[in-house]
């Protein structure tokens, strides 16, 4: 009788410790999830800012100005343009 009680007591202690450990583990994982979610959010924000930055740098007015001034580019004269007919079937070339 006493032996059984002792066994159960040990079992109870083990279970209790297990519960504590798993609870702790769960909380740690939860904290990690929170951190990652916060990181995802901040990455999303950064993505938005980068998109904004890209749009700003790639503004056509700016690109055109740089091409003209710094790279000394200009639109080709139409006489020097050659139009090639695409050999692909018409449905591919369709609008």
């Amino acid at each position: 009788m006493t032996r059984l009680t002792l066994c159960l007591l040990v079992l109870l202690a083990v279970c209790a410790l297990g519960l504590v450990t798993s609870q702790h583990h769960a909380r740690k994982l939860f904290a990690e999830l929170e951190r990652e979610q916060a990181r995802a959010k901040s990455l999303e924000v950064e993505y938005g800012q980068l998109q904004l930055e890209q749009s700003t740098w790639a503004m056509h007015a700016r690109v055109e100005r740089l091409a003209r001034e710094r790279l000394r580019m200009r639109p080709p004269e139409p006489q020097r343009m050659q139009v090639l007919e695409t050999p692909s079937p018409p449905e591919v070339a369709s609008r």
Partner: protein
Amino acid sequence: MRFADSPVLAPTFPPWRSRFVVGLLAVAFGTLVGRALYLQGWNRDFLQAKGESRYSRTLEIPGNRGRIFDRNGEALAVSTPVKSIWAIPEDVALPTRELDRLAQVLELPRDELRRRLGDTARDFVYLKRQVPPEIADRVAALRIAGIHQSKEYRRYYPASETMAHVLGFTDVDGTGQEGIELAFEAQLAGRAGSRRVIRDRLGQIVEDMEGAREARDGADVTLALDSRIQNLAYVELKRAVEANRAKGGGIVVVDAATGEVLALANLPSYNPNNSARRVGGQVRNRAVTDAFEPGSTLKPFTVALALETGRVSPYTTIQVAPGSLTIGPATIRDAHPEKALTVEQVIQKSSNVGAAKIALALPPETMWGLFDGIGFGAAPRLGFPGEAVGKVRPYKTWRPVEQATMSYGHGIAVSLVQLARAYTLFARDGDLVPLSLLRVDSPPAGKPVVSKQTAELVRHMLELAAQPGGTAPRARIMGYRVAGKTGTAHKQEHGGYAADKYHSSFVGLAPASRPRLVIAVMIDEPAAGQHYGGIVAAPVFAQVMAGALRILGIAPDAPMKPIEITPSALEVRESV
């Protein structure tokens, strides 16, 4: 002797004393039970809430506003977090030196800052809203008690004034106020949510609790606009408005195949990133919200109707001598009197008398039916706020002179967008598509208005108008056949027509062999000596059309011969 009988233990106190102690204990116990009942039963909800507030927190989760993209996925409007600096005036006690530093960091006048912080009657006062995160960090580094920060969102428009009128803007709280931002508010707006969590001693979130409300981010909106064409249109329009010292102008570029609005620009414009500039008339998207008398750009519709009803053929001769036509008290004049013109030449040379004579042969009801069919007098339903309906009076009230003037675009008012849409009729073999500000993935079905044959005949006439001998040889571009019509109309002022103020316009399409783009240009009050649509507005059309066709990679349909500058003898002045 038994233990209990020991005389030492014999009671020496009177019995009431023990009873008194028992009674006291009973009262104390009763008090405890009562208190417990009170706490557990009576006051339970209050205490539980108090307890929860010690460890649980409700976190607000903001819903992000959707982004706006152009058709190629370029970001046109993006919200990004910024900080608001606010204070509890009572808690702030600042030595002057620190006040100076705060004012400097916030870029606020010192007196203004002092005034706001001095208002101790209030518990909450904004010092500055929408502060970039770097500046907010510097404010935080000052470590001033009573000054707090909260997160909010600010919307940025990288294209600034180029697309200001289409995109519109939001107010400081992120609600759409104008343009697409207002029109698609329901889609763009995010819904803020919240979640309840348990926090530990260190403030870390330990567990989620029930009662979370999910935050929903606003949906992104993809516009039909092509930012390359938009930029081109804006730059060319601006150049023309400046060169002609005009009051303003507008341009609309429409893809005839799908009805998508590829570009829409207005002048004067404003920078939507600067809230101080977002006031007054410049905010209005005139191409959509303002109707004007279009002038001769309406002649092709009169002719199309006459062709459609079989009353004329392109080669029917119309007597236009002596260059004027008197109907009742009014006289219609041509700038260049001719004796007789074919219907084709009426369009080519833009004869008012010719158009009026053609119109007078048509029943008013039929003419009204056409205007109605091409969307005049009805909002274009772009979903844009404040779309102009225009002005087309019911045909029953038309007098003959009004019917005659309407044939060349007077006594009728339309917006530039309506005009551009109506011209898709000639670009699309006689049917009309609904315009769309959003990208369209499958082309909508058109609504037939005139026959394919009529559309082709009118397109040919429009091509003649955009050649030497027509009113708009300056609309030509190298490598493509273009077709189009000029319009020059006196502006209405105080119920009459202003003698020296004009609306100069041009609406055209290209490539004429298989039209893809329709561009409508309007210059408001050109004041640099020229006011004819063929001289003021047609060059803008040519520049934008040439660029847009190149950007879209549309094959040329004419030989690559340079356009010669027309001797003015070949350029026909249109009638005003």
